[in-house]
């Protein structure tokens, strides 16, 4: 291993954590969720800008970013939400490669729009993988920097960087466009349990604006809106399904599932529980999950139904964009 301490945490920010793609795969049946970045589009672009594989481990900053002191020369890149980054006091831009020198301090703060910024380092963060991944699962203290968000005083290593990292930027048209207005449109595929709402319940759910509550985090995004109505089958069921119309016999929970707990929709995010006893009438497709990663409490979501084929096409388009050949141009 040629990994070396690359930066020291001066200020950790708010729950700043190491994430990696595709996340922790293969242990979901024992209750370990995939984890991974909330906005995988921005995350992958940050890695490409520093010459890494697009899935390499990098930092996810949430609402309030960290301050880091560089311990080596190298290349970094910032993408996602604007959090007022400064290098030794001078503002630096997102969406481009940035050369850093040993001793320089990257300071970030809070921003007016979006929720998550990514910081990638040439070589990729090289903390020890746990159950096959470096992704942090805070709730159980698994992966990342000793299991949790980064802490002041920690020194984090990176792996071997590509020999010559050319300075690049991401074409403005290929960056995710973070919605700054009141209402964010988020695609959903009906299912797996849309039949528990029935045609009327589905139509009413899709016609509403849903306000994002502050009680949201990497496990789930809580929403507030009108009353949810259910189909007759939600009431006429065997007792092992539970008493509430939103209850179903315990089943697996998909990432992106819109989980109905009583009358509260909770969108299941990357650190969500693996199973539970509430229905999931809709699922946000993988290519739209990044939007959830950038929504702020108080913004509203309007759900737009798409077909499974459209969801696959959205993912393929995003996968094509997130390649060095497509996304990068010389700076």
């Amino acid at each position, binding site marked *: 291993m040629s990994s070396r301490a690359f930066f020291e945490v001066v200020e950790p920010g708010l729950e700043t954590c190491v994430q990696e793609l595709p996340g922790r795969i293969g*242990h979901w*049946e*024992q209750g370990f969720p995939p984890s991974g970045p909330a906005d995988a589009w921005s995350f992958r672009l940050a890695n490409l800008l520093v010459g890494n594989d697009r899935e390499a481990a990098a930092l996810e900053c949430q609402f309030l970013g960290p301050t880091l002191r560089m311990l080596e020369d190298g290349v970094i890149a910032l993408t996602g939400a604007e959090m007022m980054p400064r290098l030794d006091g001078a503002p630096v831009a997102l969406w481009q490669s940035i050369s850093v020198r040993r001793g320089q301090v990257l300071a970030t703060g809070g921003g007016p729009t979006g929720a998550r910024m990514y910081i990638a380092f040439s070589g990729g963060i090289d903390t020890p993988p746990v159950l096959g991944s470096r992704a942090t699962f805070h709730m159980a203290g698994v992966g990342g920097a000793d*299991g949790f968000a980064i802490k002041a005083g920690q020194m984090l290593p990176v792996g071997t960087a590509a020999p010559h990292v050319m300075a690049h930027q991401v074409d403005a048209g290929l960056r995710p466009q973070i919605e700054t207005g009141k209402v964010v449109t988020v695609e959903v595929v009906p299912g797996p349990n849309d039949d528990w709402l029935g045609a009327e319940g589905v139509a009413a759910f899709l016609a509403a604006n849903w306000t994002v509550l502050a009680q949201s985090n990497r496990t789930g995004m809580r929403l507030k809106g009108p009353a949810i109505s259910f189909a007759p089958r939600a009431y006429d069921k065997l007792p092992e399904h539970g008493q509430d119309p939103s209850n179903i*016999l*315990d089943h*697996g929970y998909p990432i992106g599932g819109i989980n109905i707990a009583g009358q509260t929709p909770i969108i299941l995010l990357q650190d969500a529980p693996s*199973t539970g006893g509430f229905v999931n009438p809709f699922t946000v497709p993988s290519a739209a999950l990044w939007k959830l990663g950038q929504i702020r409490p108080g913004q509203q979501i309007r759900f737009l139904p798409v077909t499974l084929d459209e969801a696959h096409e959205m993912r393929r388009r995003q*996968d094509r964009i997130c390649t060095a050949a497509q996304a990068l141009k010389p700076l």
Partner: protein
Amino acid sequence: MIYEKPRFYPAGDRFIEVELGNEMSFSLNIAVHALAAAIRAAALPGIIELIPEMASMQISYDADRIAFDDVTREVERLYASASAGDEIELDSRLITIPVLYFDPWCEACIADYRRRVTDKTEDPELLCALNNLAGRSHLKRLHAAPEYWVAALGFWPGLCSLMPLDPRARLVAPKYNPPRSWTPKGAIGIGGAITCIYPDRTPGGYQIFARTPVPIWDREQKLPAFRESLALFRPGDRVRFIPIERDEYDYIEGKVNEGVYEHSVVDYQKFSMANYRRWLSRLESAA
């Protein structure tokens, strides 16, 4: 009921919910595990992982390698050949968990809830009343009698849903309402007809009445049982609870803290559905 054919529901572009029925029963759950074993053995390219549950499973797939329709066709085919009922034989480890019944930590937790939230009937007494048991010693004897089947895991890392394999030991209880804000790590509880072991100090809703000193998950992977994973159980394992006294509890806890405790795991057995059904019918004719 158990459906004639699996039902498939898309859950976005990466997951599929497969329902095999809509009831909580052992025969349905073992059909889920038999199908999961068949899917794993088939090693289909593009199938990433499975979450088997009570009556269903979630399949993660990579649609750039296998199409939705191909997943459903392959799974239907595997189900038709794997679910020939009595022929099901699954690898099944037997894990023994030492348990102190009516331990002081659960008692303190129940007392705390009754003082702060609502003056409910104490959990062991509620279980006795709802299941027509003579008292705590009857509850302990009955709960420790059967082998339990790990029907599913999840919600929290390592949290297991256990079904008694002996129908005479079936105990039922409602969940706490409102839920508890904390539960002692290692507490044993019953909710619905399911026994669980709390992997950590977490909120909870099951009626609690016992505690094990043995960890069932360990993020630091200190003990030998956690070399391969952070969680002890896998779906399809069997569990047996062995009642212990307080001095034994303290001794085992000491071994755990020293990092030298070895879990009792027997991994040379198979679970045979045919033999199990024969045993069940002998029970019925005796009754």
